[in-house]
Structures are given as C-alpha cells and as structure tokens.
C-alpha cells in the first residue's frame, strides 16, 4: 500500500501538479486583481444605465454592449497594441512605462474592462427587479433617495444578482487563461496555459499536461463556488427558510 502511494507521489501526474502550482498563482492573481476593481465599476455602470439621463444611460449602454459583444481575445490584442502605441509619447515621459506595459498590469486592466461590462448587465437586471412595493414603502416612510438606495435598492440588488455574479466570477477566472496568449512573457512569469503548452512541446503528452491544467481550473472554480455559496447564505439569512434559495452545485451557463 505504501509502495503504491510512493509510486503515486513519484508519478508524472503528481510531478505536473507540483510544477503547475506556481503558474496557477498567476491565474489566481489575475482574477483576484480584477474582481475588486470590476465590482465598483460595474455598479457605477449599472446605475448609469438605469439612470433617467439619456446621455449617461447611452454611454453605459454602448460600453456594455461593445465589451459584451466582442471577444476578450481581441480586446487583449487591441489594448496591448493600443497602449504600446502611446508608450514613447506618454508612458515613458511620465516614467510609468514599466508599470503600464507590464502583463501583470495590462492583464487585470483588460479583464476589468471586460468583466465590468458583464457584471454591470447583471446588476442592471437586478436593479430592474427590485420590488416596487419595497421602494414605495421606503418613500412612505419619508426616506431620502440616498437612504432608500442604501436600505432598499442596494441590498436587494446584491441579493438578486448574487447567483449570476458567482457565475461571472468563474467566467472571469477562466478568462485569465487568455492573458499570456496575447502578452509577452517576462522571465518565468507563466500561467497554467503557458506552462501546459511548454510541457506539451517537450514530450507531446497532451493528455497529462492539459488534464492537470484543467484540473487546477476545475478545482479553483469549485472553490469559488463554495465561497460564493457561503456569502449567499449570509445575504439571505433574513429570509424565511422556505424562501431561501440555496446556491446548489448547478453551474450556470448564461453569461
């Protein structure tokens, strides 16, 4: 038994898992750096789209449509070459070119631009679904617009949007796989896809290397799902148990 176990530990599979642990951190970094920035931008965009001002809602509409309507792959290529075009004229003189042109900066930048459009659409849908009766009740109680936003609109929006937002977090994590297809690799800063490709080019064992990379994505996706489920429970804790919708392991397929 222990022999079997040590054979397993010494196997190519375990070896790959060890090799890919560091690259996985890059994917995690890209997702973690984009999520907290994408969230407030998305809320702003959703409020803009929902606003009565034609100009504000028009801008938000166009932004959301453009970023949801085009591939992230193209957005990466486009923004990298666009930022590059301003390198000599702007970033260099300002002395910020080392930061601006770094994949660890451009990666999250493009991911934020992209994910905020998707999340904004989710929040916008949730905003429209906030129960009117609750808003009227807040008005009847004499709450100001800011007060009613804080105590009625916001909590409802987050609660209603949460399942779709969970889904979007997983999509975002998967989207980090695209970063190094388009950006230069600096030193050993490689992500899962990069590493899997590199290992594949050495021994052509596509089944091993791509499966291990896939396993990392799968496990981390499940972990995101688990964490989001805990948050969901908290968000719904005031509701009657029979109204609470548990976030079951039923992956959503809409984006």
């Amino acid at each position: 038994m222990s022999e079997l176990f040590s054979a397993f530990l010494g196997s190519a599979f375990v070896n790959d898992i060890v090799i890919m642990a560091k690259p996985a951190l890059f994917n995690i970094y890209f997702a973690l750096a984009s999520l907290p920035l994408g969230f407030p931008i998305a809320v702003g965009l959703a409020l803009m789209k929902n606003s009565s001002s034609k100009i504000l809602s028009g801008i938000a509409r166009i932004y959301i449509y453009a970023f949801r309507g085009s591939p992230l792959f193209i957005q990466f290529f486009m923004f990298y070459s666009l930022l590059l075009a301003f390198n000599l004229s702007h970033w260099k003189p300002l002395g910020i070119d080392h930061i601006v042109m770094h994949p660890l900066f451009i990666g999250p930048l493009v991911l934020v631009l992209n994910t905020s459009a998707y999340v904004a659409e989710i929040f916008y849908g949730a905003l429209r679904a906030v129960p009117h009766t609750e808003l009227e009740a807040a008005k009847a109680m004499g709450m100001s617009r800011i007060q009613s936003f804080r105590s009625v609109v916001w909590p409802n929006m987050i609660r209603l949007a949460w399942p779709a937002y969970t889904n979007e977090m997983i999509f975002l994590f998967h989207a980090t796989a695209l970063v190094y297809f388009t950006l230069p690799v600096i030193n050993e800063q490689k992500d899962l896809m990069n590493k899997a490709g590199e290992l594949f080019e050495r021994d052509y064992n596509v089944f091993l290397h791509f499966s291990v990379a896939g396993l990392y994505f799968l496990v981390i996706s499940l972990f995101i799902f688990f964490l989001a489920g805990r948050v969901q429970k908290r968000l719904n804790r005031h509701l009657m148990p029979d109204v609470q919708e548990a976030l079951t392991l039923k992956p959503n397929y809409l984006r």
Partner: protein
Amino acid sequence: MLETISLWLASTFSEDVAMWFDYFTNGKHLTWYASVRFTLIAAIAGAALAVLFGLIGASARRSVFPPFRWLGWGYITIVRGVPDVLIILFFPLAFEQAIEWIMAQRACTATELASGSWPPCADAQWYLSTTEYLVMACVSLGLVYGAFAANVVHGAMEAVPKAQLEAAKAYGFTRRQIFWRFHIRQMWIYALPGLSNAWMLLLKATSFLSLLQIADIVLWAERLGAPNFFARAGMVHPDWRWRYYFVLFLFYILMTILSEKFFAYLESRASRGMRLNTAPASS
C-alpha cells in the same frame, strides 16, 4: 476591375486616394477579407454541432439509466469547470493522438511501439491541414457550447407545462408523438433565450481559430498590422496593429447585433400561437 477603379480614383480624387485603395485591395488584404469564411463556417457548423451535442447531453441527463445521467452530468460539469480555450486546444491534439494510436496498433511493429517515440512509425502519421483543423475546431466548439446548450435544453424541457403533455395524452397521442410533437416542439420557446446566449459565446470563441494554425481573420490582422521594414514584403510602415484589431472589434460587435436581430425574429416565430403569461426568462 480593381485597377480600373484605382485609375478612376486617381483621376477623380487624387493619387493618395488611389494609393490607399490599392493598399486595401492588395492580395494580402483580399486574403484577410476572404479568411472570414473560416470564422463563419466555424460559427455555423460549431453551432449546429452544439445543438446536436446539447440534445444528446440533455437526453443523457434525463435518462432513466443512471450511468447515462452521470455521463451527462460529468460532461456538462467538466466543460463548465475549465476554460473554453483549454478544450479548444486540447481536443484537436488529443483526437489526433488517439487516431494515431489506433493507426499505430495496426501499422507499426512491436519494437517501434515500445520505442517510446511519438508517433511510433511513419505509417501511423495523420496529416492535418487547415481543413482537418477547421473540422476539429467546429467539433471542439460544438463540444464546449453543446454542454451549455444541454443545460439550456434540460431546463427548457422542464419548463414545458405538464398540462400540455397531459392534454396530448388524453387525445390519444403515443409517447413518441408526445415527445417529438409537443415536448420538443414547445421546448424551443423556453430554450431560445438561453441558446441565443450560448450562440453569442460561441461566436466570440471563433476568435481562437488562429491557435489551431488556421489563417483566420485574427492571424491576418496581426500580419497586416505588424511593422514592416522590408520593402519587398510590401508597404513599409510602423506598428499599425491596434487599427486592425479595432476593425475586428467592430466586426464582432456587428455580428452580435445581427445575431440579436435574428434571435428576436426566431423567438417571435417560435412563440406564434402560444400565449405565455410571462416572457421567457432571459439572461
């Protein structure tokens, strides 16, 4: 034809206009425009396969035979759990090696098989050209978005009112008739919004074709926009890539607009004669 227009432009407007016209209609640009066929073929064939895999996946999930249910669930969960680009890269490579392995069992000698090199012998070599890659890209897209479609179809099958099926039974229709003429027929109305969403994702995933050595619009945009310092290779120019990528950006937005119009038309057609209390749930 192009030359005549160029001459006319030079005489009517200026040499500059004619020069740019010549540039945008040179063979390299014409190849770029024509390469959109790969994107469109992959999108349409991929979508057709996705619907097929979706129906198979949904049937497996609804099967009374547990192993089929587990297979259906496993397929849907694994595909959803990993990035689409990983499967699109993995499937063609894996499929090629699987085919070569089967070929090798017949064609190669035992010593060659044991040698550990890949492929073991020359007779077990499968040539992949753009056509094979394109077919495999379509299958990959079908596999990935088939899982999405399976989930949508599964949900839509559940959404069809039971009363409709019971009424059909009361009228004496057979089980098979009920399945095809009522259940599947009505399922589409509930599935269309979700399928439309999956189509949009698939459409955007067609931008990965260049990763499979297909000279598609993305590859040509990169080649055309790249700085050129060598006069024999065409106009000498600095880095123009973002302009070319911006064209692709607009192209995909345009395709999205057209797709939305098409699905709106389909939805209005599919819901003819149906009185739905609520609009089908959308994303």
